[in-house]
């Protein structure tokens, strides 16, 4: 009888010990990678980015007196990417990060607001106006 009780107690204690073990999740270093993604061939120079760097070149206008005003470069939705006090006579190159689908930027300077296209990740603007022979 006592032997049975002893065995029962041992069995109960043993069960409790087994069931109470808290198994910590080990770092999962055996994740099975996605097979399809392992098989595709991605170009080595692909940067996986949904944005691009655009170089904006601004040509200054030699002015009679120093003219400073706020230069803003925005996306077409109005987001200001660049805002700074700028001399109208100064040439400047600015590198901006824009979403990949961006095809043009907006330059705002004083009363000037002009949409400039992005071509081969470059955009250009000049403060020197285009003058035709019959310009008045």
């Amino acid at each position: 009888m006592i032997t049975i009780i002893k065995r029962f107690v041992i069995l109960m204690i043993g069960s409790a010990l087994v069931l109470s073990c808290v198994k910590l999740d080990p770092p999962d270093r055996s994740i099975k990678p996605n097979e399809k993604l392992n098989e595709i061939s991605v170009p080595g120079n692909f940067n996986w980015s949904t944005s691009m760097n655009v170089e904006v070149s601004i040509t200054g206008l030699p002015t009679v007196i120093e003219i400073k005003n706020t230069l803003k470069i925005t996306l077409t939705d109005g987001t200001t990417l660049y805002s700074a006090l700028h001399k109208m006579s100064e040439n400047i190159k600015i590198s901006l990060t824009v979403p990949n689908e961006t095809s043009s930027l907006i330059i705002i300077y004083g009363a000037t607001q002009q949409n400039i296209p992005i071509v081969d990740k470059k955009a250009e603007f000049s403060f020197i106006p285009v003058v035709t022979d019959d310009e008045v």
Partner: protein
Amino acid sequence: MKTKLLSILVFIVFTPGVALSQVTLNAESGNRAIEVGNCWQFAGQTYTSLTSEVLSGSFSLISGQMNSFSLTNSFIKTPWMKIGSGNITFIARIGNQPNTVARGVRVSYIPYNSTSSSTGFEGTLTTFYTRDFNVSDLNTVTVIAPIPAAIANSTSLYKILVSFVGQGGSGKIMSDNYIFPGTYWSNPSNSCQPLPVVVVTDTDGDGVPDAQDEYPNDPYRAYNSYFPGQTSFGTLAFEDNWPLKGDYDFNDVVIGYNIKTITNAANQVVDLVASFRLLASGASFSNGFGFQIDGIAANKVSKVTGNKPGTMPMAANGVEVGQAFANIIVFSSFFGEMIRPGVGIGVNTDKAGPYITPTNMQVVVNFINNGVIPPGGAVTLGQLNFSALNFFIFVNGDRGTEIHLPDRMPTERVNPSLFGTGDDTSNPGAGRTYKTANNMPWAINIVQGFDYTIEKAAINEAYNFFIEWAISGGSSYANWFLNLPGYRNAELIY
């Protein structure tokens, strides 16, 4: 420290002695467009560099053929000016052509009329000088037109119109070396309207008028620039099993970001305000997150606030110690900032678990503190383009196991012995990092924002054109992440 007085500035005019006593035109720019940009107007006039036509220097003005006595057929017109006193002078010569009947010049003034926007604010013209040239005299002559008393030294604004008239023959009129006594008073940046007559208010005296200053009462701040938008957030999504491949659900750490750069009137960066949303972490690891500002020395930072580096050692200015470039540890443990609900793995990747409101963090990296530039010097806006921000996670408290976007350089705290092990094929010396043998990454950055996948759902299973985008090198399905018909399997997106 600047005192905040009401500073009266004519903000456009900075150069001492800018009130010029003369306005001149000599064509030496060689490009009429430059004069037009400076508010001169021309009709029937071009620049010539022909030796037979140049009167002075390398270029002179030359008219077209003269067959009209209209004042508006062939002219030069000055910008808005405050007229001085004395004489308007220039030199001129008639071109040698037969059948010339008459050649002459007329000089007029045009007053500013603030009510006449339809005429460019030009009022009624008054001719005050007339000269008819001797058509047989082919020498260069000096034209001297006395400024009339009615406008001399006036505080009002005028333009001067010099008109060339004539009849017969094809001979043109060359001219050069124009001198108009007075002060240039036009604004090329404001549609050639006059410079402000009323002084412009610049309350904080930083040189940026209040109307343009986004911080009109703060002399140390002036402008805001944003990425990816003023209120929109991009998304960073990481796998944390590097250098081994993960399951490509790209939800082990998912963070939204918005960057605002605050600059001063000198276009120096004062603050970088980085707002983060801790969206999800479908991971067993509690990962840390930070960013390096590539190319910006650590001692160009004055202080960092809003971050939670925990017990990680930071320098006195708040950047991570022992790094040449500024490194900001945003948080050291994701699950220290967002508590796991205990259902599924991590937080906010298992639809069976409760949604936990994302934790928002705003980290401010201050570069110039109250106008004081730190020992490393100032940072310009051009130097702090968004592309300089090099985001990374570090895995489960192990600072050396850091994971960056593909081909971004690691920080100096990385454990370099991990490169090239497991599935990683990095060669940092060649600029290649964090890519597998078939160029798969361990992190992606969707600047337009991104709806991440549920736990264990690979990104290509949730987004039907992800693979097409990848194998095309980004040229196809560049908008793969958008919620367009057929683009996604919604049941696999959280």
